[in-house]
């Protein structure tokens, strides 16, 4: 088995990042990988920045990813993508949701939200995929499924789409949301 892979998921509290990371980790462990996943709790629920880190491979030690070590960053919110780019390998992959959630300083009008942030990311990241996950999820019927759209894109980008993800999905979401999330996963995989 090859070296440990590092996946960093970033966004804002309430975007479903923890669930997406849970599904990812469950699928990886069912496929026989050693997996460690670290998440930051606490203040995150109050509109703060949220990150989860998933590391998998043959034998994983640290549960956290070092700076410049992530093979892929999946950003559920575009400004958060830039905030965490320091953790990406210089040749790493960034999958960025073209979706903005203003933070307190931008809401008060004191500081503008950086509207050109996607261009700023593109200027430094060679391997960048921009996904309109929120739009896709709305089209599928529920904006909350944007996390699974992004998960689909992540699986494709990491070339780990051969695991039975639909089954893992079904084990981790409420039954009535399974069809929606299966569609979201498939759409996400297509958009890469």
């Amino acid at each position, binding site marked *: 088995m090859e070296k440990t892979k590092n996946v960093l998921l970033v966004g804002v509290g309430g975007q479903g990042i923890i669930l997406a990371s849970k599904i990812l980790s469950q699928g990886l462990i069912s496929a026989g990988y050693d*997996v460690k*996943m670290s998440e930051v709790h*606490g203040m995150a629920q109050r509109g703060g920045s949220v990150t989860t880190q998933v590391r998998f491979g043959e034998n994983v030690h*640290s549960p956290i990813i070092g700076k410049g070590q992530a093979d892929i960053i999946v950003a559920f919110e575009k400004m958060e993508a830039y905030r965490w*780019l320091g953790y*990406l390998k210089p040749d790493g992959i960034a999958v960025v949701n073209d979706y903005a959630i203003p933070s307190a*300083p931008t809401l008060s*009008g004191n500081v503008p939200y*950086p509207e050109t942030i996607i261009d700023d990311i593109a200027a430094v990241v060679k391997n960048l995929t921009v996904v309109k996950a929120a739009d896709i999820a709305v089209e599928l019927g529920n904006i909350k499924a944007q996390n699974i759209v992004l998960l689909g894109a992540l699986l494709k980008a990491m070339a780990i789409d051969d695991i039975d993800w639909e089954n893992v999905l079904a084990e981790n979401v409420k039954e009535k949301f399974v069809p929606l999330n299966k569609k979201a996963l498939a759409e996400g995989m297509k958009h890469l």
Partner: protein
Amino acid sequence: MKQLMTGNEAIARGCYEAGVTLTAAYPGTPSTEILENMAQYKKDIYSEWSPNEKVAMEVAIGGSIAGARSLAAMKHVGVNVAADPIFTYAYTGVNGGFVFVSADDPGLHSSQNEQDNRYYGKAAKFPVIEPSNSQEAKDFTKEAFEISEKFDVPVMLRVTTRICHSKTPVETSERQEVGIKPYEKNISKFVATPANGRIMHVLLEKKLIELEKFSNETSLNRIEWNDKKIGIVTAGVAYQYAKEVFGDTASYFKVGLSFPMPMDKIKSFAKEVDTLYVIEELEPFMEEQMKANGIECIGKEKISNIGELTPNVIEEALLGKTPEMLELDDSKAVGRPPTMCAGCPHRGFFYELSRKKNVMVTGDIGCYTLGSAEPLNAMDTCICMGASISAGHGAQMAFNKNGVDKKVVGVIGDSTFFHSGITGLLDIVYNKGNAVTVILDNRITGMTGHQENPGTGYTLMGEKAPVIDIEKMVRACGVEDVQTINPLTLKESKDAIDKALATDEPSVIITKWPCVLKEFSQEDYEEFDLTESICQVDEEKCTTCKVCGKVGCPAISFGEKAKIDPTMCVGCEVCLQVCPFKAIEKVGE
């Protein structure tokens, strides 16, 4: 197949497998999920949210004296609250195995300090066990109960945020029924009078000598031999980080029982290696003891005792390597501090409080600490659980005594009031103070993620419970001037504050409205009007004066006009009440 578990889930599982029958805790990040996960074992384990950590510790001590394997769990600062009983329980020793969890928070992810609680082991003289992943969190929990019973001591299981909140694979096993040990009255053991205590101290010192022998023999402290140029003594998650950085290029002394330390075994390890590093998170707890034993080693002169340890920190400190990173402009990503949620019942009250001049607001620990943030800035202090009332009283008395014309308002949450606010309020009444106390009752323990408390009507195990009526409790403390208000109505808030500030007696305002994120109970629906609706801006009337922005609601933003995000708004109407142009209206009821 192994299961992925957080360290907290694994500790709960460890208790289940160890045959534990009693656990107690007060919620606190990063420890909260230990007891939340214990609830699934309610058939076998009695578990409770206690009103504070000291009570939780004493409940578990009582369980242990009665003969049951018992556990208490808390965050690092909670151990400060619970320190009194544990120092004495170290003296008396146990009956049923007794373990308590100290969940430390290096990096202050969600805490007011980053104290290293391993020192409690040394100060109070009980063993300290440090797991480095979830498997060990489970296995060491079981081992901790064995040690507690074998050596007749309480044991501290010391974990950190990364252990608590990282999911790693765990192999589970069956529950081992140990039953309850017979309880026999034993005054010389369990009554800590000075006469008994003098004898207990001698016995405890003997136990520590035996424990140190055990520490040198147990597999909790183990050596991994690789190249002998570098040797590393390490414990907890720092072990994982050290392995990440050095891999097979160094030999490891992995410490699992870090007090008493396996000093003889470490001495012989030190002799075998050319350079010895001590890699530990936060303070030089092991390093100081090693140096006191004449072991030459390199630790905190290279690796900082400030902040969370990471593989990056170790790599840079010991190998001089800095990571290769993209070149970024840090100013591009605007900060994202936590804020009170849209619809938070604290917002309206803080908005009114922030408009009062010549008032000092002593705050407390909870979501409402966010009242100190922009744009409300409605808080002067936050020290620890309960200090809003008692430090507020002290400040008020100091102002009064020294002729300073300033009123003090102490602000505390419902769960925090039960935790350690009641005694402060008694103090105000007893010593004839005149500080104002505000109890922000949002019907749940909010910040830690919605745990039940004595005011909510439910227990940890999901059973109905008596509701402790805060107003009655406040009156029972001797406060006569009590106002219970709806904090979403600004006029009610303002009038209550004005009335309380004008009186020279102890005065209490209780703001009562459920947390917007709470899963409402039937009782909540009956007591409060929780009809779903939203507010929206009438763009014709809006002048973009931005007054509504001053309430600090994350749903409100400004373009050419004010805008309310319909997916976030819950129709609390606070912004509607502050708009001078009546440009905000309620829709969708």
